[in-house]
């Protein structure tokens, strides 16, 4: 199992919702889509790469073959997928502390939702309904979401700066260069691997060290 890929963590949560209240949830999501200001709280959680909510009607589980038994469920289900930086606790707690109302709004109609405050029942609710990821892939395991956003700013600024880099005297260049760095203070900063970047990276590294005789019990 691997919920971690570099600096990203994959969370999967599935929760039941009564079919006759699922449409209320869909309406809430639709309003959130139409009025993006309702998602302002989420945007402040800059540790999120991507997140999504999917509601599956109790009769909407894919049925592809006559030999496949048809599902016979009492409830519809809400799936939540998130990609974020940091630990499970940091993420869940940041939701609770930053947007408790938003969280309650999205999960309110789910069966036996505990509410986001107090913390302990909310932790239990998420843990109980969470599914472990088997394989998680991240195209940029060395980067956090803020690195990716910052990198775009750096790239755009550098390309713009370079257009006039050869104009003027050396002293003027230096002045502009310093201005460039000052402007990018929040976005610069180099990236390094986390101790375990991915389970595969960890295993490959372990095998490499074992073969090199650097690991206890390894080949001498």
């Amino acid at each position, binding site marked *: 199992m691997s919920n971690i890929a570099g600096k990203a963590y994959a969370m999967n949560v599935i*929760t*039941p919702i009564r079919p006759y209240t699922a449409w209320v949830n869909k309406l809430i999501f639709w309003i959130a889509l139409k009025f993006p200001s309702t998602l302002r709280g989420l945007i402040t959680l800059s540790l999120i790469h991507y997140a999504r909510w999917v509601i599956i009607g109790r009769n909407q589980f894919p049925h592809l073959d006559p030999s496949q038994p048809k599902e016979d469920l009492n409830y519809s289900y809400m799936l939540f997928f998130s990609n974020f930086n940091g630990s499970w606790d940091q993420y869940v707690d940041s939701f609770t502390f930053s947007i408790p109302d938003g969280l309650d709004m999205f999960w309110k109609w789910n*069966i036996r939702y505990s509410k986001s405050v107090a913390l302990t029942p909310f932790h239990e609710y998420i843990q109980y309904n969470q599914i472990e990821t088997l394989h998680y892939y991240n195209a940029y395991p060395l980067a956090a979401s803020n690195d990716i956003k910052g990198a775009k700013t*750096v790239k755009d600024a550098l390309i713009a700066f370079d257009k006039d880099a050869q104009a003027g005297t050396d002293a003027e260049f230096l002045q502009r260069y310093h201005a460039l760095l000052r402007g990018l203070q929040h976005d610069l900063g180099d990236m390094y691997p986390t101790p375990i970047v991915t389970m*595969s990276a960890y295993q490959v590294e372990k095998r490499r060290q074992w073969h090199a005789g650097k690991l206890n019990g390894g080949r001498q």
Partner: protein
Amino acid sequence: MDNVNGNAYALTILSPIKNGFIQAEEIAYADKVRDLLQGWNMLPNSPMTRVPQTYLCRYFVLDDVYTESLPGAGALDTFSDLLPYIPDFVRRGALPKGDHLKSKYLVFSCNFHGGPSGDVDAYLRGMWNAISDRIKEVWGYCYGFEQVNDAASFARYMKKCQLTASLFFVGSNDEPLEEQLKALYLKQELAKFAVANQGLSATVLRANYRDFIKRVAPANPSAPTWTAGMYRL
């Protein structure tokens, strides 16, 4: 409800896994799928590195849904939990029902660059062209996959398994992956350059900058750059 947000696409796939087991290996199909995906973790890097435009993706097996046995915060739950003198049949009636799936599902959830039109077909065809061997290996135990034999039939099959997102939130960047990787490379290199060139005269700094720009080629997304899934510097 939409799977598209800006240029990013949220692909959610639930493929039903066949019930039954592989006799020779004495392993259930769902466990075999699980085993194969676990095996991907032991490779030098994920096969998904080869699939163009994939930002992040995950695979897991949905064995069953959960019965909510923990107390919730709703008024009815609290009422029935707290008042033991309420007749048992009333209290039992207030308890959540137990649901069970009849099939296990292979879940593939992916975020990729699909452009403003959300071209999921192009992505799925690209996925097939890049890793069809792996796809056949894993999806081969799913219902309906027998009809898949090329990129077009794979895209058709996947769209039958697709679910629509009710809300898709993009907290990151939705540019093409090669642009994002190039930007990360530039961020890393510019930070190193800034540190290494502190306190130099304007003339030397400018000359060094010229060499730097020539080396990093900011406007060229293809090289030099970071590669997808790169976990070592």
